[in-house]
């Protein structure tokens, strides 16, 4: 969004420029050693620390968010349940990302979802609103009215040629996807690609009208998060997406710029419905990779694995 700011004094300009230069230099010196950025960062640890470390490993938040930009975070928070049930993203993950966005000068952080239960209850139970209460310019909002959505075309769409997307996403500069790792009785797992369904108005047609796997891949060609951070600190391995179900604790945060690669790696960190799978076995991930959304084979990727 172009912003005209006439009337910036020379002093302000110089101040800002020198600060920017200093920050840039400082950042460069810190991350110079990590220059060959990893494709994926797989960090073990508690939700907040692992998230922070994962973002730093990928080159820091400044790689994704510029000063003055508006950011949309898309965690899972569409069920009225707490972190223990593993159907929603851990609030500490969301908080950490929002905080880091603000630290690099984001103008606004809008944390959104389109809930399946009462929006008010979801907001309270998921804990994200509570966690982010102290952050300035940060809003946690459920958009349950159609007026907040706008139709866009899907040029590459095979089954879906248009879709109504949350305006806030379309009008912001940065989308960061913060999915919870969980099972899904239709698509196998629900992670980054599946989580994009929370940004559109009419989800029901994905189940009733279209092949959901193909529709998801179509959607992934137009909704492109700059960063995907998969919360696998807990994983709901059965009974997903809403739970209740079996919850295991891989204690991992997986981050990357390629949503398919992140999901594909995520598939491997837990058994789904009691069985081990590879990313390639997930129909919707395979379809997304075939549309060029991302790489489905994680073996050749440069992956950082550390404990936070």
């Amino acid at each position, binding site marked *: 969004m172009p912003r005209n700011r006439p009337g910036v004094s020379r002093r302000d300009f110089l101040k800002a420029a020198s600060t920017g230069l200093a920050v840039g230099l400082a950042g460069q010196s810190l991350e110079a050693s990590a220059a060959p950025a990893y494709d994926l960062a797989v960090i073990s640890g508690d939700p907040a620390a692992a998230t922070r470390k994962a973002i730093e490993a990928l080159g820091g938040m400044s790689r994704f968010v510029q000063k003055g930009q508006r950011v949309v975070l898309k965690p899972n928070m569409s069920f009225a349940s707490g972190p223990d049930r593993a159907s929603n993203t851990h609030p500490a993950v969301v908080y950490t990302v929002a905080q880091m966005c603000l630290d690099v000068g984001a103008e606004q952080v809008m944390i959104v979802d389109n809930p399946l239960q009462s929006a008010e209850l979801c907001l309270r139970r998921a804990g994200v609103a509570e966690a982010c209460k102290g952050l300035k310019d940060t809003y946690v909002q459920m958009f349950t009215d159609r007026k907040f959505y706008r139709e866009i075309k899907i040029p590459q769409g095979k089954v879906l040629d248009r879709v109504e997307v949350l305006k806030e996403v379309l009008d912001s500069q940065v989308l960061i996807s913060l999915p919870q790792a969980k099972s899904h009785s239709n698509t196998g797992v629900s992670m980054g690609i599946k989580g994009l369904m929370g940004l559109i108005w009419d989800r029901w047609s994905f189940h009733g009208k279209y092949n959901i796997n193909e529709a998801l891949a179509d959607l992934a060609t137009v909704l492109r998060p700059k960063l995907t951070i998969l919360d696998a600190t807990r994983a709901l*391995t059965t009974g997903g997406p809403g739970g209740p179900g079996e919850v295991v604790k891989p204690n991992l945060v997986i981050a990357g710029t390629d949503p398919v690669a992140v999901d594909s790696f995520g598939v491997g960190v837990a058994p789904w419905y009691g069985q081990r799978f590879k990313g390639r076995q997930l129909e919707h991930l395979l379809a997304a990779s075939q549309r060029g959304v991302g790489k489905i084979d994680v073996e050749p990727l440069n992956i950082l694995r550390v404990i936070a």
Partner: protein
Amino acid sequence: MRATIQALSLLLFTLLFALANYRLPDWLPADIYLRLDPLLGLSAIVAGRAWVSRAMWGLALLGATALVGRFFCSYVCPLGAILDFVDPLLFRRVKRRTLEADGRLRNVKYVVLILFVAAAVAGSSLVYLLDPISLLTRTYTFALLPPFVGVVNLVLDVVRPFTAALRWMSIATLSFVQPVFYMSLVTFLIFLGIIALGRLAPRFWCRYLCPLGALLSLVSPLGRLRRTVGPECPACGACQDTCPMGAAVDEGGTRLVECIQCRTCVAACPEDIVRFSASAQPLPIGDLSWPDLSRRGFLYSVAGGVGLGFAVQASPFTPLQNKVQLIRPPGALPEAEFLTTCIRCGECMKSCLTNTLQPCLWEGGLAGLWTPKLDFRFAACEQECNVCGKVCPTQAIRSLDLEEKTHAKLGTAILKKEVCLVWAQDKLCLICDEICPYDAIVFRTIDGYRRPFVVASRCNGCGYCEQRCPVEGDSAIVVAPIGQIRLRTGSYVAEAKKLQLDFKPNPGDDQFLLKSEGLRVESEKHEGAALQAKPQAAPSATKKPKGFLPW
């Protein structure tokens, strides 16, 4: 002074109405106006033949009226306040002379009262039709709240471009969920009618029709605060002309049954000789302290009420009871008691978190008008909310804690295979399973596809599946009242145990689950072993969960 108290009372009534939502704290009686209404309590107790402890609040108002007089109508009643406030706005220019039939019309409210009480004796609760507090709460819920929210949202929409440009995001993203109800227009028209009657006479409703006023007037002559007129009264008739209740009579007399102590006459008196003072005198016996309804009128009213009471019940709906497709709120008394105890105030429907509670038109017969039902195709009953019982002034919906409420089974979901997308069209749909908070939907492999089944013993009838089913038209999964638990007394948890129902979702119920696996992931991580999983032996095609391709 009186207008201020009236305004405050109306404000309090409105505020309590607004507070009646799922966050209502247990200590706050949002339904206090309804509880204070002795007529509603009386009718519920008589018609329902059962004790209603919340109705005891009504004794407080009766007692206060017996002590002071009929101050309620002019100071407290929110409907009276509205009528008083709109009167100068609408009818300032209208010349209203005392109606010729004033004497007979004043008796109508007693006929109404007797009709309703007699109908209650016959076992039908009809008082809700004209009880002012029930009527106004209902009007607020169905007729005033929806347009109010609509207007607020409209204003927000209009200013949205500006708030968004100014980056006032809290306002720019704000939009309230629009409540909607059946029967909004009917309810509104009745309310409008009551206001329009003011064209004929000020406080037409209070003076001629209100059954609560009639009930209070029976004890109000006992009240010690009485109107007195000095002996020097020149009988100019100013008080008689202005009294909205027709309580002032010739030669400084007062119809004690009619006087609501509004003191309009004090202001109107050119001689300034009208006083309202505490009198130690005993009740003056005479025509003015008892309604002048004839014996014949009384008997006709009783007979009419009893007849009406029976007529309302004399329909197949009464024997059909639980055999109609009607889901009542969780904790609702058994149907017969529910119908006689419910006063149709609409407070439960206002406070309902999901807006699923809707008023019945004919679904429950004539006896079920405006009673709450759940409309699952529209919205579900949220398991974390128990507000409908909390705000029910007659406890036709019992106030239950969340644990008890969860066990008050509403019905059972029935899957219609011929409509279900998975059963009939082999589509990939799981929404009923995804949304079910009780894990009552399980998938089993039939003909190579995983297809949904309902585990009846775990379904508590919350209706999420019916609401969210993506089939167009009627849902492919519908909650029927099968197995509903409706208790007059006692614990729902105990009853559910007896029936071997389990509303605690069991995460172990999934046919693809191998428990040891989950533990191994944990141990792998702790040993710091390779994070990446190795694929296991290829699972057989029939056992593969949906969404996974063969390896």
